């Protein structure tokens, strides 16, 4: 770890509104999650796809262990990490779009899951809108990161944040209204 500030310190600084700390936290987590994912892939053997949920849990366990007793609550970590996960996913989607345009291959969707998945342009728009929402009402953006990008259920998110499930559901509905308003002009193009 050396002289690098610990994740705990970065989180605290970010919580106090330090922009550089938030950026540093983001890239630290990004690196961390990528490393974990690679490690996991190597261990299982490709092409097993990992769920984002698994990855976040693993990241938390590893980082919390490393940072020792000083590590803050899991809830806050998940909030940050989920946003990072979103970043990973967007990156991935963008690279996929690039490949598609290159005509390398065409995905023939068999499962409905794949059919319903939004395309990379839409994902990018959602991500931008989420950044705005994170400024207006951060807790709502977090719910979307955890649910849509990481695949946690309402019950899991509620447990993580120690609130009741209905609150999470309400936040989710509100967030959807906000996001839809934000990206609708684009969707109608």
């Amino acid at each position: 770890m050396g002289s690098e500030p610990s994740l705990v310190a970065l989180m605290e600084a970010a919580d106090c509104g330090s922009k550089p700390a938030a950026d540093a936290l983001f890239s630290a987590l990004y690196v961390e999650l990528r490393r974990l994912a690679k490690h996991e892939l190597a261990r299982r053997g490709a092409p097993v796809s990992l769920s984002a949920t698994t990855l976040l849990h693993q990241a938390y366990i590893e980082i919390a262990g490393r940072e020792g007793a000083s590590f803050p609550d899991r809830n806050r970590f998940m909030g940050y990490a989920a946003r990072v996960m979103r970043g990973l996913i967007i990156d991935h989607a963008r690279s996929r779009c690039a490949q598609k345009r290159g005509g390398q291959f065409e995905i023939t969707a068999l499962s409905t899951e794949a059919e319903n998945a939004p395309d990379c342009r839409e994902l990018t728009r959602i991500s931008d809108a989420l950044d705005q929402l994170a400024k207006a009402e951060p807790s709502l953006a977090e719910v979307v990161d955890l649910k849509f990008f990481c695949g946690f259920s309402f019950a899991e998110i509620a447990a993580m944040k120690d609130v009741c499930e209905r609150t999470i559901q309400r936040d989710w509905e509100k967030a959807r209204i906000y996001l839809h308003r934000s990206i609708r002009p684009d969707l109608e193009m």
Partner: protein
Amino acid sequence: MSAFSPEQWQEISPYLDHALSLSEQERAEWLSDFRAQRSDIANLVEELLEEQRALSQEHFLEGHAQQPLNEDALIGETLGAYKLVSRIGQGGMGNVWLAKRVDGRFERQVAVKFLHFALASQGAAERFRREGRILGQLRDPHIAELVDAGVTPRGEPYLVLEYVQGHHIDEYCDKQKLGVDARIELFLDVLGAVAHAHASLVVHRDIKPSNVLVSGEGEVKLLDFGIAKLLVDDTSPAAATLTLEGGGVMTPLFAAPEQVTGGAVTTATDVYGLGLLLYLLLTGQHPAGTDPHSPADLIKAITDTEPRLPSEAIALEDGQGLAQARGTTPEKLRRQLRGDLDTILSKALKKNPAERYGSVVAMANDLGRYLKHEPISAHPDTIGYRAAKFVRRHRAGVALTAVALIAVIAGLSGTLMQSRNARRQRDAAIRERDRANRIRDFMTGMFKVSDPNEKAAKEVTARQILDKASGDINTGLAKDPELQAQMMHVMGNVYTNLGLYDRAQSLLELAIEVNRAARGPGDPETLSTMDSLGGALVQLGRYSQAEKLQREALEGQRRALGPEHPDTLVTMGDLAGTLAMEGHLEEAEKLGRETLEKQRRVLGAENHHTIVSMDTLAVILGEERRFAESEQLEGEAIDLERRVYGPDHFGVLMAMANQADTLYLMGKYSEAKQLLQQTLDIQRRVFDPNHPETARSLYNLGCLAARDSKRDEAFSLLGQAIDHLSPRSVPKVDNDPDLNSLHGDPRFAKLVARAKQRVVSDARCPL
């Protein structure tokens, strides 16, 4: 309007919170109150709530964003003879890739499925390959072929499968708006494939909509046959089933009870899976209901809760949408499911594997029977069920028997009200109400009595229903002897129509006895029952006994009801017929004409009894050898009755047979033969094969064949007839002049011997 500014959002956010926590109705109230204070915000909030409803409906953001991991690195990688082309899906058990055969032997696209687990040892990898090869031997046009099974150098097992494009069967059915029968027909292909696999000792273990694809051409293909077994860890099968999906807990939506509890997985497990799939196809929902389930709740539902009957399940859902996707209305859909399909699915979905269909073929057979409107094998063995089916298949025949019986019984409670005097009317009304209830109970019981002995019977006959009911009548209605006797009377008449004259006789004798005790010997019901008994006795050849009864009845009816009462007239007509049988033709004709004239006046020309009297008079005229008159009158009777009651009516058949007799006596042989053949065709369709009237047609056709010296044909027809002729016709055989040409043939002697045997046995068991 585009995105919110942070200020804007801050302003409306609390109101949205509040509104979202209210129920629909509370919301409307709150909004209208709030509009009075802040109409601008209230309007915006209302608009947003509308939007939110729409978003829920289109499942906005409810899927998952793509997985972030870069498995695309595999593109171009080669596994054995196959080169991976692209990832085409993520199944429950692992990722699926489209691959191309590249060893140059032949062009072929396949699907490569990587399984989400690592093989623990070299032994496990061996077992995987071996099992894979066994599955590869399974060939069926409706089963996706397993081309190969292997393990990557990194130790990850994979399967090479036939590449199938299509929709999940449930989506396909909804998209095509297939009706219930079309869905079942498609499903029968699935059953056929599974049955084939079972014959090769392969159990699917994981039947669910996503494993049954239908191509654009409507061809069914089953995926993943037996593959679930490859994933089962021998030490803990139940755990494996529940943890298949990427190490997470699988929601065992399509698991059979024994899969959840760790019981043995057998072909019965597939029967359950198939039942579940069909349930889903027909009702659009899972038997455990549509509510979201936690795995624990679902397991409880699978192991403990009896599934709702499909016909009831659709009532709980959006019936309109479900029905539309099946090209019908909710009510029709419910009716289609109710009964056989409820039964078939309940049997397939039994918790106990031993209570399910013994094989997929048995299930397919029942569905096939359902499609053909035949009785299915699965059922709580109640007579009522079979009766319902019998009615549907043999409308005409049953119309004369069981249905007539029901109609008459149902009509009883009304007619009983008549001939009560005013003083007793109030008491009577109460009694009649109780009586109506008793009739209803008795009828219900008649069709619902569960009879374990019936299990083996292929089909229930109207006679079985009747036998059951006449057996119950002594016990079931003993408290109400008047009603009991009346029911016996009705059933006795039905026995007569069925050609079971001895049973009719014993039941009618009993009815008279009960009636005499309960109502008195002069009561109209008692008298009418006596006439009916006379009718049965005529068929048994006991003419003088019949005549005596009918005369007594007629006298009583004239006194009690009057000379032109419908009941009096019926007895008059019957007596005329009896007299004709005895050869008292003059009196018979006089009485017959009087009856017909009065009935035409009192009941109308098209009344059934009037037409029967036309037939009776025609027979009398025929006996008098006034053939032209007889033929004319009988022809009118046949036309009238056909028009009023339909071509298969019992009365029409009687009149046709009588007309054929007359034609024969007139020497119009070919006309007689044609009419007899026509009669026989209908009789075969609507009567029990042993009905005496059918035998009569066969016998008369035999006489015609004998006349033409077609001996073989004659003996064949007579042989079919002889054991079932009504007792009154049997003694005729010995010296029937129409059979003279057969005398001397040893077969004739045999025939006569059989007839004599009949007379002896009939006499020995008079019942």
